[in-house]
């Protein structure tokens, strides 16, 4: 029996990450709390190294390895780099927040890195099982991260909810995948696509599998009616972890949908399009309307995330390349906004005080005009008001949906985003129109300050010149064109 080593070059970022994560795990055992910074720095260095390896190997080619189970294409490269950036930014924001909360430990960084490994595997999966493995690696790391603040009852409750519903979703997804396997006889995404194209397999079984897959995806993305875990987990988890859940995994979620529905099941686009349309419009409606009633900003942003995921689904629902690249643009923009807004909550928090109520933003303009301005940009971007980048994200998705003939859906989405504008405006109102209730000075490390400024100004700069990011999205998806 001969054994040939698979081509390892496309997997180098993952291998490097795994080695480094394990090394940090061991090294951290020998560190005291005083020099915990070493773990943090090593984590950032790992991210930098991953980015370098990914970029150095990126040549615009589609390369399969591990017997066709793993793929490296432009989309994977771009999404991975975005994931590195998101995780890196998240760690910068978190450092000051987790220290007084007993989470400044090696596990935090190692779990974050393993979660990231899961995302990278999802992004590069060319096989249903690999996709599922990546997803589980991500999910298990996130469950542990949510529960990390052991003495916080709400965090433990959130972790429990997240775990149970997440496991249920994984089960659904897996069941759907097994039905797809039954219908097409393969777990390989390319083979499944070809089989569907040739009309192999029972359509009923296929549709049945598809329903479970879409439901599983709906759970993972947090789309109505599978959204119930989102508000509780966002609110209950420590903000640093909420930030984590609300940012990079959304990129992986985008990749999940791309690999499953587009690359694998584009042949059944008319079946899943309808489901996504319903989920999209319900998510936008329920997300936006329920967000109005919230007083906790983390919970409000959770509902806002549901409505944003609805827009993402709207991009997918158009079923065209135009729609997919719009969805990709949307998710990247959303991650940028999500990082900034949860980052802001952490900046305003301090030892023994969580700035998690809307009230805590009262009079921010008087306490710190700069932070207030950054938050203003973030909120207007979330609401989709130009000249912030959020507008172009909405524009891209809406034009793709309209092109696909979903006129009434577009009108509904537009009307509901007026509802959405209300609660974003309320944050601006609290910051600018009201007098501060809390007058404690805002202490932030200079790295967090720089990051927040860069984050906010990126929203504005990309709003004035969105072309590079849009072109990047179009570029990354060119290689999947053949599967349409």
């Amino acid at each position: 029996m001969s054994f040939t080593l698979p081509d390892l070059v496309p997997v180098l970022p993952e291998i490097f990450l795994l080695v480094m994560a394990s090394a940090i795990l061991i090294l951290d055992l020998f560190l005291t709390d005083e020099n915990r910074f070493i773990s943090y720095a090593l984590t950032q260095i790992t991210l930098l190294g991953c980015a370098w390896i990914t970029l150095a190997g990126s040549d615009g080619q589609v390369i399969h390895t591990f017997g066709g189970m793993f793929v490296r294409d432009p989309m994977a490269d771009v999404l991975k780099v975005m994931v590195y950036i998101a995780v890196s930014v998240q760690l910068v924001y978190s450092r000051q927040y987790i220290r007084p909360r007993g989470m400044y430990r090696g596990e935090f960084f190692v779990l974050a890195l393993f979660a990231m490994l899961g995302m990278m595997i999802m992004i590069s999966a060319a096989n249903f099982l690999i996709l599922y493995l990546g997803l589980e690696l991500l999910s298990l790391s996130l469950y542990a991260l949510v529960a990390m603040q052991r003495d916080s009852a709400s965090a433990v409750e959130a972790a429990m909810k997240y775990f149970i519903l997440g496991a249920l979703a994984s089960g659904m997804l897996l069941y759907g995948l097994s039905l797809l396997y039954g219908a097409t006889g393969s777990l390989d995404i390319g083979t499944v696509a070809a089989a569907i194209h040739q009309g192999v397999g029972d359509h009923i079984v296929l549709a049945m599998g598809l329903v479970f897959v879409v439901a599983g995806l709906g759970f993972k993305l947090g789309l109505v009616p599978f959204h119930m875990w989102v508000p509780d987990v966002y609110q209950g988890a420590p903000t640093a972890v909420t930030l984590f859940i609300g940012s990079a995994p959304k990129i992986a979620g985008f990749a999940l949908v791309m690999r499953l529905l587009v690359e694998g099941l584009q042949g059944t686009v008319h079946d899943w399009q309808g489901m996504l349309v319903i989920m999209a419009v319900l998510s936008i409606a329920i997300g936006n309307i329920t967000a109005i009633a919230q007083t906790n900003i983390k919970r409000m942003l959770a509902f806002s995330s549901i409505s944003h995921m609805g827009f993402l689904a709207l991009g997918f629902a158009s079923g065209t390349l135009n729609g997919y690249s719009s969805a990709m643009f949307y998710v990247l923009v959303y991650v940028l906004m999500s990082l900034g807004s949860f980052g802001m909550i952490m900046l305003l928090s301090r030892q023994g005080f969580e700035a998690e109520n809307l009230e805590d933003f009262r009079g921010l303009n008087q306490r710190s005009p700069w932070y207030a301005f950054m938050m203003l940009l973030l909120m207007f971007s979330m609401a989709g008001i130009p000249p912030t980048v959020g507008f172009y994200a909405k524009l891209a998705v809406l034009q793709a949906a309209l092109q696909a003939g979903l006129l009434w859906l577009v009108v509904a989405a537009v009307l509901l985003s007026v509802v959405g504008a209300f609660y974003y405006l309320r944050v601006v109102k609290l910051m600018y129109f009201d007098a501060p209730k809390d007058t404690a000075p805002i202490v932030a490390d200079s790295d967090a300050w720089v990051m927040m400024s860069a984050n906010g100004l990126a929203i504005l700069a990309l709003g004035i010149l969105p072309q590079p990011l849009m072109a990047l999205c179009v570029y990354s998806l060119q290689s999947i064109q053949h599967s349409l």
Partner: protein
Amino acid sequence: MSLGIPQLSLVIWVPILAGVAVLFTGSDRNAALARWLALLGALAGFLVAIPLYTGFDTLNPGMQFTEMHPWIETFNINYHLGVDGLSVLFILLTSFTTVLVVLAGWRVIEKKVAQYMAAFLIMSGVMNGVFASLDAILFYVFWEAMLIPMFIAIGVWGGPNRVYAAVKFFLYTLLGSLLMLVAFIYLYHVSGGSFEILDYQKMPIPMVPQVLIFLAFFTAFAVKVPMWPVHTWLPDAHVEAPTGGSVVLAAIMLKLGAYGFLRFSLPIVPDASHMLSGFMITLSLIAVVYIGLVALVQGDMKKLIAYSSISHMGFVTLGIFLFNAYGMEGALVQMLSHGFVSGALFLCVGVMYDRVHSRQIADYGGVANRMPMFAAFFMLFAMANSGLPGTSGFVGEFMVVMGAIKSNFWYAFFAATTLVFGAAYTLWMYKRVVFGKVANQHVEQLSDIGLREFVILALLAVAVLAMGIYPLPFTEVMHASVNGLLNHVAQSKLY
């Protein structure tokens, strides 16, 4: 001529960059610096706008001073600017008004001076952008971006009920504009991937989409004008806004709605515009007559002027949808004139409010005894608001009534009632506030306007009188473009 200088970019970006610079002066310790920098920025903004008028070719009905750069290639969106006779004067009006607004807020605004001045400078550049955009998305970006500084201006420096007014203002206008965005996206796909307004104007469109597009545009522009019955945000916004905010709202923002009808509705969907002109004229006449009557019973001066604005804007939309040269030029003149007159009236109310801190008519009386110079200016603007010949208010109203007569006697009849109602509510308010005996302690202690206020009001008075006595320099600019638009609208786009 242009000498390769991007003049339209200058009128947009000079105020915006000046605003950003003012923002960086920071806290109120540097308030004086912020004020002077803002004044400098506003003056620079006005100076760069002047060549647009002096270099304007009045015989050319097309776009002038055009600039075109690719902006978002993915969606074929261009940074495409240009002005014609319909828009160029509004850029001048905007830049001019900004100078006045900066001066008007000089003393009164004491907290967050830098932010106040910056908001108005940025707004000025953005509004110039709305008038100069020839790309639908560029237009939309400016159109919406304008809301942010205005929202902040009303909410931070406004009156007691400012939060309600600011949010209402924002959501009302956002709702309208988003439907316009859907129309743009639809046109983008139908036109085969273009966001050029000029392409849309040439493109044939069947009747049903025309009507839907018209309605989408209608929601955006009618809210902005505002037309009856979607006007209710305006009295709230006007009353609560600081003086500068009211002036900008009345003088420029309302014009944007009417400008939208001229730039988008009429040329892009002419058949639907013709078909629905009866509907538009009816709404306009309701605004003229009914809102005129509503203005009559107001006890709050700002509210009265706000309702008077709605009524006057009814005249503008009436003129636009008459589809004749008198009506349309009258509407444009009325827009400009109303820009000066309503701005001036809000400034006058501001002058009194700064001293007495009340806007109620009942709190005044006999102001003329203590502020004779102010009373004279106020008189002039009140007369202009009621359409006295010799003031700018007369020219536009007269032209629109002429246009209406050509079209239908009853249109003209109802439109002409404004000459009665307008005079009634304006002069009655003037009488109660200014004439008679000194009413109370507050009025007793009034001091007349200082140099700064004199300069502001004098500039406006000159504009109002110049336009009333010799309107040709204004009308000759718009002539060619109005005729071009009317010829364009006369041709059906159905196929």
